[in-house]
């Protein structure tokens, strides 16, 4: 499942959904808002193109790394320090494929999915994080 939304991410539920009897490994990645002297972050998405790109990346990872299942959930809206931004969960027969698939989805998403983050400072001002994806 690919999701973009404001709701808190349930990593447990994502893990349950990718478990398979033929999968001996489940790898998860959780990106969170780091305290760099900020109050939080605001995350914005160009929703439909972002969902399409994330689904394309998920399918690439499924075939390149022989994953048995993969899910990606990206949050939008105002997030406080410590809250989850992004979760990726991959299952595969063996750990190498599961780790590689998870890493692939993460790096490709950062480079290709139309999403942006703004750091909110304690004085209420904001600063858009400089992106590298094109």
């Amino acid at each position, binding site marked *: 499942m690919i999701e973009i939304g404001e709701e808190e991410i349930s990593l447990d539920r994502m893990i349950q959904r990718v478990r398979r009897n033929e999968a001996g490994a489940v790898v998860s990645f959780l990106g969170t808002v780091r305290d760099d002297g900020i109050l939080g972050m605001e995350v914005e*998405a160009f929703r439909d193109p972002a969902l399409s790109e994330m689904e394309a990346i998920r399918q690439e990872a499924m075939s390149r790394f022989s994953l048995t299942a993969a899910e990606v959930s*990206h949050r939008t809206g105002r997030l406080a320090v410590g809250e989850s931004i*992004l979760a990726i969960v991959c299952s595969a027969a063996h750990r190498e494929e599961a780790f590689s698939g998870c890493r692939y989805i993460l790096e490709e998403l950062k480079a290709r999915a*139309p999403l*942006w983050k703004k750091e909110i400072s304690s004085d209420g001002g904001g600063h*858009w994080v400089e992106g590298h*994806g094109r």
Partner: protein
Amino acid sequence: MKIKVLAFAAFGEILGREREVELEEEASVKDLLDELASIVPGFREAAFEPSGILRDYVLLMVNRKRIDPERDLSRILVEGDELAIFPPLAGG
């Protein structure tokens, strides 16, 4: 003709997230960007170099498909087209 403009991140703050722009028939993407620069304060400085060239961090989609700002600014728009403008991607 009317063209819908969607803008994200810093460009969303300058242009508003969504607006409609009225253009002459056969106007190009460049004509649309020039029109935005003439009607929205701050957009010209944000999107164009002083020489008038589009800054390299301006990314564009027409009807949800990426276009190449070096090659496709002369693309002719038609009624109902949608232009999206945004800076480099920064999700994850």
